[in-house]
């Protein structure tokens, strides 16, 4: 893992750079004084979104799940501003979900229940057959572990007093 980190264009380094940038942006206006739980919660949401977004951008839309994540983030941000967009977004997700279920039945997946659960977990997994779903899951797991490592080290760094 350490040898991987030496590569400046590795997934980890890309994610780290982006995430730290986002973090500084989020934390910039904040004062050192303790914040209300509400503010903390808002910041938590923003950081979480920043983490997902930076990871998805590091993957660049080479993967279905990253594209789905980015699309989801964009539609959600739009839906917050306009209610009509929100309805459209929900309709879209519903159609993709139903389409995914049709695919599942058509392919006769033996492990239908678990596959469906996995589809819900992996972003964009609704419209994938089991074969691609497993591919995406593998890559998604790899990216998630990277994300967790980087965030943990940053958190440790911040919490050192």
């Amino acid at each position, binding site marked *: 893992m350490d040898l991987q980190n*030496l590569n400046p264009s590795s997934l980890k380094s890309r994610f780290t750079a982006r995430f730290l940038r986002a*973090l*500084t942006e989020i934390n910039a206006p904040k004062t050192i004084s303790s914040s209300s739980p509400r503010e*903390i*919660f808002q910041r938590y949401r923003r*950081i979480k979104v920043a983490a997902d977004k930076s990871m998805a951008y590091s993957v660049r839309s080479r993967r279905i799940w990253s594209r789905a994540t980015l699309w989801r983030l964009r539609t959600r941000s739009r839906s917050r501003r306009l209610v009509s967009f929100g309805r459209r977004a929900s309709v879209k997700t519903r159609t993709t979900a139903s389409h995914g279920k049709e695919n599942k039945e058509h392919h006769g997946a033996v492990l239908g229940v*678990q596959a469906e659960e996995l589809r819900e977990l992996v972003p964009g997994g609704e419209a994938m057959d089991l074969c691609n779903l497993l591919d995406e899951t593998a890559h998604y*797991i790899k990216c998630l572990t990277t994300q967790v490592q980087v965030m943990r080290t*940053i958190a440790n760094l911040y919490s050192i*007093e």
Partner: protein
Amino acid sequence: MEKDEAFMAEVLNRTASRQLTWNTEVLNCATEKLGNHFLNPNWDNSMDQSDPFESALSSMVSSPAASKVPVSGENVMMRELIGKLGNICNSGDASCYSTPLNSPPRFDLSMVNLLNHSTLVPFSADPGFAERATRFSCFSTGGDSGCFNGPLMDSFKLSCNQSINVNGSQNNKNSAMAGNSDSDKKNSGVSRSSSPENAESGVSKEESSVSQQIPSQNDAGTRKRKSIPRGKAKEIPSPAAADAKVASENDESNSKRSKREGAPSGNGNAKASNDGNQKQSKENSKPPEPPKDYIHVRARRGEATDSHSLAERVRREKISERMKFLQDLVPGCNKVTGKAVMLDEIINYVQSLQRQVEFLSMKLATVNPRMDVNMEALLSKDMFQSRGVLQHGIYPMDSSPAFPCGYHPQQGLLPLNNGIPNTTETQFSMKTQGFKLPSIDGFIDAHPQVGSMWEDDIQSIVQMGFGQNQPQSYQGSISTGQVKIEL
């Protein structure tokens, strides 16, 4: 049709009578053999009878074409017919060919019926047709293509009877042309859209290529061919040797026979497929069968041979391959067997990772940033170079001897504050620490001095205070050191 008849009349005029008689003799032999093959279920007898037939065929093929008549259109048509017949028979065996080839036969049967009525003469005049007819009869007596028996066998007899009277010299031309064109077509690429003749010869190519790609399936699939030509298979390779065109097929048949001879050993390898299991037991209990499997075997014995089941099998293998890869990725899944349990583990792991991300983001939100550092500037490539060396340094600060224990409370505090259930957090914090520990121990042992240096830096930072108050230079150095350690 008029063109064909006119053409044949022209050929009749051109050819010598001796050729005619010789060809008729061959055709008589062919019909005789065909009749024997149709009626005689015992292939051993037919083997002896077929030898003169083969020699006749070979002589026919080798005889130079006396008159090179432009027969392109007609030959193509005849070869199409023969190719379609070949497809029908082969698909009747139901195991041999790849998916796309299974579709045409249904259509071809009707086509053959139509064509039989109209163009029996040219149809039968081709020596390659006679040679194929023997093969078809082999397949038909195997019982797989019952539908084949009715119309085509009648057409064979009719056409054979008729061909005796009609130009036999055409056979020479056709055989020569057929030999050349077939070899040409075989050399050209395999494409489904091309003529069925091409497809038939290309099928064998495709088979071999596919069988190379999926070598594991060969053993299983060869069992399929065993059952069909019960004892008649020996006849099949021998007429193949007769024709030059079939020589290449013979090579393939030899290769496939050798592949199939691995099948008895492959029989023991029970694939985890419900379809093949019961059939495998049947296969093993069969009496010793002569080596006859010469067509590539992708569909397994007893399994439906339509395109869907073949594709299903390929899909299943892909999925199992990916499951194995995931098994390596997810820690602690080596003992787990079975797709369902494996998927459960994967789901749990993905859920835990997602929750960890949420939790860490929450932690980052609550923790006040002590250092208002321009991390981006620091995270340059130079920093990244020194990552690996100092990565361990961060851990001693948390709690040097009892790293897991020390880490716990830090994480435990925040969830309580924010209402996140504590149990789940501790679970995967334990997990992640479990993952981390082996690497940490190694590093700490390796570079103790660096850790101490880092500790000194931190202590100095604490004294100085974080944030904007720090002098830029000092802050830069400290941050550099910290970043180095972190990365």
